[in-house]
């Protein structure tokens, strides 16, 4: 049943797959970021209560969703890497971590810039905010564990274990607004209809969520390619790739010199 997947365990096939997928993700990301930002900033109506300050939602909610989405994918990859010993899954963990950390950072910064005018404080030690901050620490932990070991085999294993253990934080973030008395309000998008948000604001929000998802996909694929190359640098296919690349560059230099 899963046989069709087996070739992708091979680094070279995975590398080629990354190359095939990359342009699609990149095009969707660029197009939807432009549409989403212009729509959200210029064309969506102001909120009845929060006026134009609520426009921060168009980056705050997507980055927060993706910070958790990226962590889930990272934890799943870590699980696969630990159980099936798949090298590519381990590399995916390392590729996802910095991107997820960037998403978490955006969610925290935009949340602070939204909280100041509306709530009256940049930061409160509220369960939602605190657990999101811990998510950032988890990402940073995964990254620094991987960099701490010279032997990338054990480095990968250590990072995977932390990534997997840290997944316990995900339900805490999600349910924090229900379990505890938080200043942070409940979820706006609970079902796929956004009953709590008017359609004129819901659709630009959806475009922005798509934009952030496609962006995360693009950057993760780029980073995964790098990790595969680094790990496989002694393999003949990488050598072939590099030789081609250098030949191309030399040609370019030659062309320039000719002009």
């Amino acid at each position, binding site marked *: 049943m899963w046989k069709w997947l087996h070739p992708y365990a091979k680094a070279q096939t995975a590398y080629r797959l990354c190359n095939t997928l990359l342009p699609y993700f990149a095009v969707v990301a660029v197009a939807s970021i432009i549409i989403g930002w212009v729509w959200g900033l210029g064309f969506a109506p102001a909120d009845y209560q*929060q006026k134009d300050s609520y426009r921060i939602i168009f980056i705050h909610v997507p980055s927060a969703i993706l910070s958790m989405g990226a962590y889930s994918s990272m934890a799943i990859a870590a699980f696969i890497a630990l159980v099936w010993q798949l090298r590519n899954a381990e590399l995916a963990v390392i590729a996802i971590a910095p991107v997820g950390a960037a998403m978490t950072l955006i969610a925290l910064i935009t949340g602070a810039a939204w909280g100041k005018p509306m709530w009256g404080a940049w930061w409160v030690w509220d369960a939602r905010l605190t657990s999101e901050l811990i998510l950032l620490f988890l990402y940073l932990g995964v990254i620094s564990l991987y960099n701490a070991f010279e032997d990338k085999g054990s480095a990968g294993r250590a990072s995977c274990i932390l990534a997997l253990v840290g997944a316990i934080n995900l339900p805490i973030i999600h349910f924090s607004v229900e379990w505890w*008395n938080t200043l942070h309000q409940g979820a*706006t998008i609970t079902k796929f209809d956004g009953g*709590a948000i008017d359609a004129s604001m819901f659709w630009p929000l959806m475009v922005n969520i798509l934009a952030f998802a496609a962006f995360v996909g693009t950057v993760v694929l780029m980073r995964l390619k790098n990790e595969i190359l680094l790990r496989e640098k002694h393999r003949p296919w990488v050598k072939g790739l590099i030789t081609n690349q250098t030949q191309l560059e030399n040609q370019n230099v030659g062309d320039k010199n000719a002009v």
Partner: protein
Amino acid sequence: MNPRRKKRMMTVLAVVFGLGTAVALVLYALEGNINLFYTPTELVEGKGPEKQKPFVGQKLRIGGMVVPGSVQRDQDSLHVEFKLMDTGPTVKIIYQGILPDLFREGQGIVAQGKLIAPNTIEAFEVLAKHDEKYMPPEVAEAVKGIKHEKPVYNTVKGDS
């Protein structure tokens, strides 16, 4: 110990330490949330099965809805007084400072401060709470018939 191993150990220790601090912070924040959080009813009638009341001078957090018509602002200073309620009795809040933009009568707020009389709090921080609903002003008017305020404002979770 060779330097490589030392560096590795330092990082592992730093990660463990960082996560430990993080968990401690959460527990601390949540404890403050749970133990020191009162609604106006709980403040007046006592909290929990033992009907525990806070003592005068205690630092606490209180969450409730600003009673419409109760806000009194001082003409020349930032001094403001208002009443807070949830389902039962009201509590008086005294505050000196700039109120958040969402502070309105009928709005849910969370105040942090000191109990200076059995039902009066001197707050050093007033934060506005809002719900997860977003809509354009025209829709809000059509849906609610009024501007800005909702007839019944569900302010604070966990009243029970």
